[in-house]
């Protein structure tokens, strides 16, 4: 059984990590990143053509994690697959030993490196969750019986910093009704705002895992503030980063990240660390934040 499910269902705090499959045919680097996360995470997200950039698929890398006795959270987006492909990939995932699935809409192709690609979106994320739940119940979305059924542990995402927040919360409720058993969030840098979000969704009684993106520089913070929906890095954190000499930035990143984790920890049931290449900092972050 999925350790992630076991821990979340028994009310334990979890740490999840994330790896991004590479743009190329060699997966050694991302498997190495996964090894760094082994002792510090319960499960590892494997992104699905993140930012709509062509890469190795999340299904293949998730399967490689299973082979290595690491637990993947297989990310599946609606961008590139119609309902036949989505359901087939889900059944394939189950056959490969993958239990946790994070159901996402997916970045639009225009954001990536194949801008002329046909966006599919035959389903949206709510419909995908419902489809996966239907498979769990032994049927496909057309109502045909399966000869055996999977038992996925389904997750979804939410953006606590969205403005307005209400449409996100309405959609979150629909995702829960469609079968989402846990949520991972967009990156959190403002624990106060996150707390007010949590107060609004407590009534749903579903585990929320706070997204934590390791901040690498002040420039990265400004870029996210200007370009990424739902992320606001406060000025004081940007200041801390910009005052830090380049050689000490990794140390500072550990300090800031661990502090945010300590602040959000009492509010939620886990943290999802997105290292964006600074995977080697994760052990120190976990130790310093006492998240484990």
């Amino acid at each position, binding site marked *: 059984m999925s350790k992630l499910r076991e821990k979340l269902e028994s009310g334990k705090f979890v740490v999840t990590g994330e790896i991004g499959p590479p743009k190329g045919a060699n997966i050694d680097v991302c498997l190495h990143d996964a090894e760094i996360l082994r002792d510090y995470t319960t499960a590892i997200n494997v992104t699905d053509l993140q930012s709509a950039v062509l890469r190795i698929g999340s299904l293949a890398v998730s399967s490689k994690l299973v082979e290595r006795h690491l637990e993947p959270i297989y990310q599946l987006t609606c961008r590139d697959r119609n309902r036949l492909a989505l359901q087939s990939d889900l059944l394939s995932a189950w056959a490969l030993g993958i239990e946790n699935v994070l159901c996402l*809409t997916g970045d639009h192709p225009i954001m990536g490196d194949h801008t002329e690609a046909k966006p599919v979106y035959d*389903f*949206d994320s709510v419909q995908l969750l419902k489809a996966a739940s239907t498979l769990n119940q032994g049927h496909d979305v057309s109502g045909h019986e399966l000869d055996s059924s999977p038992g996925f542990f389904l997750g979804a*995402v939410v953006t606590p910093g969205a403005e307005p927040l209400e*449409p996100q919360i*309405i*959609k979150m409720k*629909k995702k829960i009704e469609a079968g989402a058993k846990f949520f991972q969030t967009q990156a959190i840098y403002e624990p106060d705002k996150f707390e007010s979000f949590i107060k609004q969704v407590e009534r749903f009684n579903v585990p929320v895992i706070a997204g934590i993106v390791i901040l690498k520089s002040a420039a990265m913070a400004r870029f996210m503030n200007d*370009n990424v929906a739902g992320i606001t890095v406060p000025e004081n954190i940007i200041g801390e980063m910009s005052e830090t000499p380049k050689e000490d930035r990794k140390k500072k990143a550990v300090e800031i990240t661990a502090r945010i984790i300590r602040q959000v920890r009492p509010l939620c049931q886990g943290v999802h660390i997105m290292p964006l290449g600074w995977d080697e900092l994760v052990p120190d972050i976990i130790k310093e934040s006492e998240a484990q």
Partner: protein
Amino acid sequence: MHATIQKPIDEIIGYLEPGEKVFIVGCDNCAAKCHSGGEPETEEMAERLKKKGVNVVGWCVPQPKGISLCKLSNTKKVLQEEYGEETKQADSFLILACGQGIHTVMDATDGEMVHPGCDTIFGGETVTDDFITEFCSLCGDCIVEDTGGLCPVTLCAKSLLNGPCGGAKDGKCEVDRTRDCGWQLIYDRLKALGKLDKMEKYVPPKNNSRWSRPRSLTMAGKEATFRSLAGDCTISRQD
């Protein structure tokens, strides 16, 4: 209406064989509204092509005023009778109208050679005399009852049916920050109408077989039948 925009003139000239005799046909409905194939633009195209050495044997925008080129019976009468002399000389027809109009000219001329003079870009609302924009994708399976009349298939870049993705910033879409997020518009409208509860309802996946192509509509008395890969759908206006 079907929005169209003229193709670049050099692309059009590239379609023509040396010495090919061309008759130009516009449309007094949609293409006229788009300034791509009304009377002024069709006459202008004839002059532009002549200046570039093209052998234009005539042009017309079938009348009466405001009629669509895609009304076959009218277009046939105009091309074969009113302009019969010129069209008989033509090796081909250049159509300044939508793709439906191109096919109508094929039918109206009993299968003569046609060239597209426009790209057909979308079905839209003529908001002002110089601005047309898209609110409907012609999917054949309308769901705007639950979205306050605003179509998420069209207004959301990802055609999401159950609410916004996380990509909107300041109410603008992640694919184009100058464009409103379709779900922000739907949310604002439902909220203003006091019908936000509609947004909480699960919307099932679309029946894409009603969006199959080509589709047809047949009218008979008080009945209309829509044919698509979803099967024949007959609606009666009896009750």
